[in-house]
């Protein structure tokens, strides 16, 4: 047999590459050992998770982000669709390993579930009909007692709306999809929603709804886990590495309009 220097070079390169890849992940990130984790999603919250009209497949920020997290910490996501109003209580009962639905981190919720680090800061904004001419600011909206807000029940947006205008002028739907449809049909005059999702609905209903005013309230979004879950540390490590190498920013840029993609 003759000695082939080129073959050695190839072998050395491959070994070096493998060492780099596995060495880095072994050093920085926990290894979940290929564990299957159940992920609760709603598939009704653009752009986090929804059914893509053109492909008929579930898609969105959550699928991309969790897919990438699972590549980094070696797990297999199994997505399970559930309704939003029961999602957090199901998590606190340990029925899923993690919930992904653009969930705002609040003190009250933190008492029943554990949160990952905040992966994005969002503002709550008002979505209105494109032809709306009765008001042009949030203050004007609040002042006119005939105007009504639609939102999704069990959301922080609902709580913000109660604080803003009270329950009498508020109608809460099971999904934001219903609330947006009620807005377009004229049942409500505005929908209060997180800016990330609001932008998504402006895109999905181009020419029917628009955003007004500045931010009503600013919050962080995170993934929710049953209390004491060991996955929190793994997800936080993966998220931090995705922020550090710019992957999170890329995923944000794909799903959120550039102005909103200021992740912290």
């Amino acid at each position: 047999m003759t000695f082939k220097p080129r073959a050695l070079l190839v072998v050395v390169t491959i070994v070096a590459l493998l060492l780099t890849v596995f060495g880095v992940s072994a050093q920085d990130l926990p290894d979940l050992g290929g564990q299957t984790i159940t992920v609760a999603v709603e598939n009704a919250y653009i752009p986090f998770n929804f059914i893509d009209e053109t492909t008929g497949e579930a898609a969105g920020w959550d699928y991309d982000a969790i897919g990438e997290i699972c590549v980094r910490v070696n797990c297999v996501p199994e997505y399970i669709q559930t309704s939003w109003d029961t999602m957090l209580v199901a998590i606190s009962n340990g029925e899923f390993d993690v919930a992904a639905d653009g969930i705002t981190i609040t003190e009250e919720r933190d008492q029943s579930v554990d949160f990952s680090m905040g992966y994005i800061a969002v503002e709550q904004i008002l979505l209105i009909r494109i032809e709306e001419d009765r008001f042009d600011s949030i203050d004007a909206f609040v002042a006119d007692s005939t105007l009504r807000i639609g939102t999704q029940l069990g959301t922080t947006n609902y709580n913000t709306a109660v604080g803003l205008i009270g329950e009498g002028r508020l109608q809460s739907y099971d999904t934001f999809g219903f609330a947006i449809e009620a807005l377009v049909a004229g049942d409500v005059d505005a929908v209060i929603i997180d800016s990330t999702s609001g932008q998504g609905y402006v895109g999905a209903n181009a020419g029917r709804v628009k955003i007004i005013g500045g931010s009503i309230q600013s919050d962080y979004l995170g993934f929710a886990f049953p209390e004491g879950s060991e996955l929190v540390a793994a997800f936080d490590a993966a998220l931090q590495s995705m922020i550090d190498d710019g992957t999170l920013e890329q995923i944000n840029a794909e799903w959120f309009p550039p102005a909103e993609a200021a992740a912290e």
Partner: protein
Amino acid sequence: MDKSSDLIFQESAVRAKANSFTFLYTFPWWALILVLVAAFMFVTILSDTFYAATFDQLRAGVALTLTVSFVSYAIALVIGLSIGLIRAYPPKPAATLRGHVTGALRVALYNLATLYVSIMRGLPILVVLLIVAFVVVPAVRDAINTTFGTDIRIRGTSPESAIIALALTYGAFLSETFRAGIQSVERGQIEAAKSLGMNTLQVMRHIVLPQAFRRILPPLGNDMIAMIKDSSLVAILGINDVTQIAKLRSSNTFKFMETYLVAALLYLTMTIIGSMIVRWMERRLQTAQR
């Protein structure tokens, strides 16, 4: 001592025993359990502040639940009676030309009524609710407003839409109940009444409908109670009935058990009172018949 008196004594002893047992057999144990559970729940509600707050919030939805249920049911009764009357007597070929004209009208009515029943009976109430709220009501309202230049403000996701949807669905069900009741009155009675000189309206008013109504009262009562339960579906439109308030409260507080126990208690109170009213009406009609 002769043996016969001894036997009689034994027999009466057995009978006395049987009588004291009969009470155990016929006593409505279920009602006792129900009353005890309800009493326990009400005591809990009175003593526990969270239950009390839940009860106060959910109670606010009772008025809407009952309004939606009873208005829908009343409209459904009118629809059911009209459609039931049309469908109880299918049109038959007439002999004269004038008969053909009214015959054509009746054929059209009969087929429209059957079409309505076939469609509405085959649709889930939830689907009807969503179609009425998000499609029919906005479209009809906008069409009327643009055609006549009016400014009608009826909203799609409103109690009015819920009532329309529930009344349309239940109207189809009730029409079949009415049809069965009307057809259960023997033809001979109708012919006898006509030979006494009554016209069709009088026959219906005095002979057919009173008997039909008495026969279908139990299923009509069942449907009224079912309507109270099905009215919980209107929560999908975001209007604040008992179920919607329970959903709002449970998703905010995470206290599902407490919230839905109170909701169940409220619904049970409404349905059991409803079934008591129905039973009272049945008994009254039976006495009136005698």
